[in-house]
């Protein structure tokens, strides 16, 4: 139970942080064009193809007492980030980054550019255009982004194991707990936890698809009549 709560807490923290970082990032990638943009796009998509151990390894090094982030953390908080909840959050944010940014980019790009032009010509600043036009028209994309990053963080294993280790109540998440139980032949407990994760994932994903279908259809109807 403790492991599950930890997992949910981690996933919630990561989704919120990712939404805050991902929104300006996606805006930038969707609406700005510059020569080196493809490099940034590749970096954003990197966690999709990288083995979690590779990502976890480099994050561990970076967070460690000799790594750049670890040093900053030591200087500010007088403690390192490796094998802590904070370290887990850092690693998970990197690992789930594409799951937030990609749906956001897709939904920003789907908005008719002329709506943004119209907003500007009516005197609106970029910020107001974002808040009054882009955001409300991207709600399905935002929901998808949040839920996908939540579910993805909930289910991650390799990165957590590399960066967080297996400290009960601190870094032992549900997926690690299942691995542990299987290692010690506690199949009944492993099954219980696995089933809970399965159900949560399914419920969350069907919610996304359900909401998207309803909102999506209405928005499509809007564009189609134009």
């Amino acid at each position, binding site marked *: 139970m403790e492991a599950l709560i930890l997992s949910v807490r981690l996933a919630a923290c990561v989704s919120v942080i990712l939404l805050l970082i991902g929104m300006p990032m996606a805006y930038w990638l969707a609406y700005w064009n510059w020569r080196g943009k493809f490099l940034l796009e590749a970096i954003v998509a990197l966690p999709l193809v990288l083995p979690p151990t590779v990502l976890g390894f480099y994050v561990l090094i970076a967070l460690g007492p000799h790594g750049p982030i670890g040093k900053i953390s030591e200087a500010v908080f007088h403690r390192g980030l490796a094998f802590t909840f904070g370290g887990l959050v850092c690693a998970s944010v990197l690992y789930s980054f594409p799951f937030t940014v990609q749906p956001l980019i897709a939904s920003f790009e789907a908005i008719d550019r002329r709506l943004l032009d119209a*907003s*500007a*010509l*009516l*005197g609106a600043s970029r910020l107001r255009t974002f808040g009054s036009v882009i955001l409300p*028209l991207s709600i399905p994309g935002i929901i998808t982004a949040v839920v996908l990053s939540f579910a993805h963080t909930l289910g991650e294993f390799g990165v957590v194991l590399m960066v967080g280790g297996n400290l009960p109540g601190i870094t032992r998440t549900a997926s690690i707990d299942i691995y542990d139980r299987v290692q010690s032949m506690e199949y009944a407990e492993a099954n219980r936890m696995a089933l809970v994760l399965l159900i949560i994932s399914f419920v969350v994903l069907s919610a996304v698809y359900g909401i998207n279908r309803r909102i999506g259809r209405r928005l499509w109807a809007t564009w189609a009549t134009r």
Partner: protein
Amino acid sequence: MGNEIIPPVLNARLRKARSGATQSFVLDLSLEIPPGITIVFGPSGAGKSTLLDCLAGLLKPESGRIEIGGEVLLDVERRIDVPPAKRKIAYVFQSLALFPHMTVEQNVAYGLAEIPAPERALRVKEMLEAFHVEQLAKRKADELSGGEQQRVALARSLATSPRLLLLDEPLTALDEGLKKSIMEDLRRWNAAQNIPILYVTHSRAEVDALGESVIVMDQGKIISTGTPHEVLDTPRRSSLAQAAGFENLFSGVVTEIREGDGVMRVRLVSGACEIETPLGHAATGTAVRLAIRAGDILLATERPYGLSARNVIPGRVASLELRGTMFIAQVATNADGAVVFAVHLTLGAKHALELEVSRPVWLVLKTHSCHVLQD
């Protein structure tokens, strides 16, 4: 308020290269637009929308200058470039771009964020009334009919008291009656505001219906300006003739010039048929293009005599097609079937002449209905 004395005339000089998959051109023009409606006419791809986008600040020209009523909005040399949000230019796109998630009221109020709420509500009400959509105030923008959307789009862009209005084929999809009533509302509104309005269209019918001064564009350049009659009824270029609705375009060679009579004769390349035209800037032997309106050609079922028309050409009806309330006859000349004239006929004329396919006829063309074009 000393600045109100300066008439809000738009002065612009622009140069912008566009290259696309289908065609490339360089927008290169200068214009002076007084208050009132000015039509920008030209075939699609002539650069009309590029011109509007440059004026609005959505596209950056390589060089140029834009000034309205003495205020400089763009001067590339002096690095002045007022952003679109600060230009106070209203622009109604072809797609209208109403915010689909907002009500009509919220759409119209969008450009009025900076004025206090009570005043804003009043202004919105005023604009909705001016364009006869006050009963739609609470409706969502995406639930409106085409004509209603056009009215809301006009109300929204004019609510901000712009100093220039750009219209990019906003009414093309509407039927004539609706178009007319919307234009009346726009004219009434502008009688008080007196700002320059640029109305872009590629439809000849729309130019005739609006009847304002017109600027003709092609390949990014202004090729003619004046009243619709002056500009479009005597075309000088074949691309313009096509756009202006000249159904008959022929290639020919000048065979004879009779300076004293003010006419010349042109032999059509594809047939043995010769046509008398007004004098053009062409020497004997040069290739020219002829443009003739299908509505300017008479048909006779017997060889006509005692006519002032100088061109009487025998032919045979190749096809007859009913379109709306008129017939379009394709008439092939006897000399060579390769020359086919399109002729417009009323239903009555078709019946009176008992026209049928393959019936022999005579085409009658006035000299001045045959326009000689330069390419």
